[in-house]
């Protein structure tokens, strides 16, 4: 004990730098600043903002903001998270961990939607909207009726079914007695055999660059005096990536406009791809969309309003894109693009130039 004390006393004398005025570092936070960032919610309701929202309002918002990833019924599109259902599956081989089947607290739903959703456009929802979406998620999980309204007042009355399904980490108590035994060194157990191979699944990504590495090592093996077999020419040379071709500014836009649009594109790329190998994601890829009929990118399932507009002869040109991007929902009501729009006209023109630069 004394050595430890001595050591810390020494540290105080020698190690701890003398900072007489360290107390002056930083500044006091203003209440408005704390309020702007401190949006977290706890299971006891601490942090809940004033507000309310019902299932019907929530359904409308969910369809617009959430369904394109989480599915109309919360079933999850592709690899996006499933948020509803899955009851009684926690002991199954492939459990479905949803808000209804797994999450312990409703506050987690509110907190997460409020801080991080919709994906790629975080903190754009008002408290009333988050109450409504949360109410609808309860409805999708059969936990409330369709006339339910969630508010700051009744929030903590709602309990999720799996609240008691969690307990504190007990690995040290339950597992460590087994895992702290002196291990066997020789003739341990019976001889083993291979029981499973990763190769059978063939889920490992292909890896052309590693083939180049293998060629290097085969050549080295040959240079060590042995015969390295038919290693053949290194594959590396062929793999040297050709520099991406410069995209030419199309349709009369200047390279400056295109470059400006590239920055604005960041808000779109969550859902849309452009360029070489672009594929449909949450939204369609936009290669060649400029000058093409609305709702016509092959292989993408558009909302009916877009398909109809295209059938009626609407084409994506500067004027239609500009109007659409300014306020997508007002311009083509009931379309599924959950995006509030770009208010700045120059920014829109840059975006259009950028999109136009990706021809088919």
């Amino acid at each position, binding site marked *: 004990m004394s050595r430890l004390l001595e050591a810390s006393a020494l540290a105080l004398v020698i190690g701890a*730098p003398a*900072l007489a005025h360290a107390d002056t*570092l*930083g500044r*006091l*936070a203003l209440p408005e600043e*704390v309020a702007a*960032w*401190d949006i*977290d919610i*706890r299971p*006891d309701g*601490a942090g809940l903002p004033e507000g309310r929202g019902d299932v019907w309002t929530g359904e409308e918002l969910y369809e617009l903001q959430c369904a394109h*990833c989480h599915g109309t019924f919360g079933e999850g599109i*592709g*690899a996006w998270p499933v948020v509803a259902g899955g009851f009684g599956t*926690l*002991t199954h081989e*492939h*459990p479905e*961990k949803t808000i209804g089947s*797994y999450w312990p607290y409703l506050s*987690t739903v509110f907190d*997460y939607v409020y*801080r991080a959703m919709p*994906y790629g456009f*975080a903190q754009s929802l008002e408290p009333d909207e988050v109450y409504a979406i949360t109410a609808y998620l309860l409805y999708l999980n059969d936990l409330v009726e369709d006339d339910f309204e969630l508010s700051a007042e009744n929030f903590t009355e709602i309990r999720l079914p799996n609240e008691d399904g*969690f307990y*504190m980490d*007990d690995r040290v108590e339950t597992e460590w007695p087994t895992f*702290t035994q*002196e*291990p066997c*060194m*020789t003739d341990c157990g019976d*001889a*083993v*055999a*291979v*029981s*499973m*191979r*990763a*190769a059978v699944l063939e*889920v*490992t990504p292909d*890896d052309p*660059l*590693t083939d180049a*590495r293998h060629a*290097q*090592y*085969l050549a*080295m093996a*040959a240079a*060590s*005096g*042995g015969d390295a*077999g038919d290693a*053949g020419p290194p594959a590396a040379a062929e793999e040297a990536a050709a520099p991406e071709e410069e995209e030419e500014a199309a349709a009369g836009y200047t390279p400056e406009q295109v470059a400006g649009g590239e920055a604005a594109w960041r808000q779109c790329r969550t859902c849309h791809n452009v360029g070489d190998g672009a594929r449909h994601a949450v939204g369609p890829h936009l290669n060649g969309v400029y000058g093409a009929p609305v709702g016509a990118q092959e292989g993408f399932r558009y909302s009916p309003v877009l398909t109809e507009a295209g059938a009626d002869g609407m084409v994506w040109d500067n004027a239609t894109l500009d109007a659409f991007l300014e306020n997508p929902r007002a311009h083509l009501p009931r379309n599924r693009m959950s995006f509030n729009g770009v208010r700045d006209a120059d920014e829109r023109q840059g975006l259009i130039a950028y999109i136009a630069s990706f021809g088919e």
Partner: protein
Amino acid sequence: MTKPGDKAGDGTGGTSRRGFLGGAGLAGAGLIAGMVPARAASPDPMITEVQPWAQFLGPGVDDAPYGKPSPHEAHVIRRNVEWLTADTASSVNFTPIHELDGIITPNGICFERHHAGVADIAPQDYRLMINGLVDREMVFTLQDLLRFPRENRIYFLECAANTGMEWRGAQLNGAQFTHGMIHNCMYTGVPLRTLLEHAGVQPNGTWLLAEGADASAMSRSIPMEKALDDCMVAFRMNGEALRPEQGYPVRLVVPGWEGNMWVKWLRRIEVGDAPWHHREETSKYTDLLADGRARRFTWEMHAKSVITSPSPQAPIYHGRGPTVITGLAWSGVGTIDRVDVSLDGGRNWHHARIDGPSLDKSLHRFYYEFDWDGSPLLIQSRAMDSAGYVQPTKDALREFRGTASIYHMNGIQTWQVHSSGEVENVEVA
């Protein structure tokens, strides 16, 4: 990716696309038989002919103001697995641990895990707030943080889901994919304790919430005891500024605990009197067990090791004879005391040699050198830490937890080495 030639698993090797077996086996044969180095059949043109690099000038000092690895190392890169996630902005990639040595991970290949892509924050725009149950709610700039006394510490960061795909059995052929959600860096920063004391934690402040500035506003509850123990608010990794993908300009360092808690782009520390039970500590990062109940707050990363070479992406090309087995071992509760290596699937074990620094909650590098006779091997490594914990087999873990818990798979990894030198991810029983 090397396609295993030995589909039958009978140890006889097989034909691979590059005639793997024929040459490599012969190369070492002379060495074993005569115990003298082989003689080349003809002079080596790399020696007898003047090579271009020995004759002509190379690039000058203005060629690469920030240097990159040799172009011949173009394969040493982070890789992702496309089918794992819906979108690359909320996804993970993997450190190429099969190509690395020593204990430090170079910054550019430290694995990434984002929940809303990489936030781009200019240092002059950065703010850190401390609020909640403190005497003074504070705001710091990066410059403020740089005026506190600093510390340098080397720690590993392992994702709780590292090796998680192997719970149901051998899945991915490569140490990079099975064990690559880990890196080990020297962090420079201010002890979190210093900042908390500066703000003055109130007596009922028993928990804190760490929150990121990115578009996922990543948030995790951390008990005050840990915060005051060894957490750091870090702004450098391996000497230079944090990389953007690692939280530039400031991240939290939570030594030995799961990587998700090391909040990047750290913008706020709130002190409270209870945990928040946010999404990343309820829906995710909880360990569902076979009985349908789940452990929460499984923060500590327990002792683990893996052989990084040979491994499926780093097979043996040199044939029989002197062979180096190397790998990594680590523990979130202390140092690694010992690593054993088995060549026969865990029946017999040999002490490996740990070389390089042995630091608390840091990667350890181990080696086991032996003469390979060319016969098929089932190679494994087993770590033992300073708390006396012995890395268990995967089956021993499954007995406690089932196969659905995703996180905290620290079981012993088996690689099958074929006679051809090719290596495969397998499970043994």
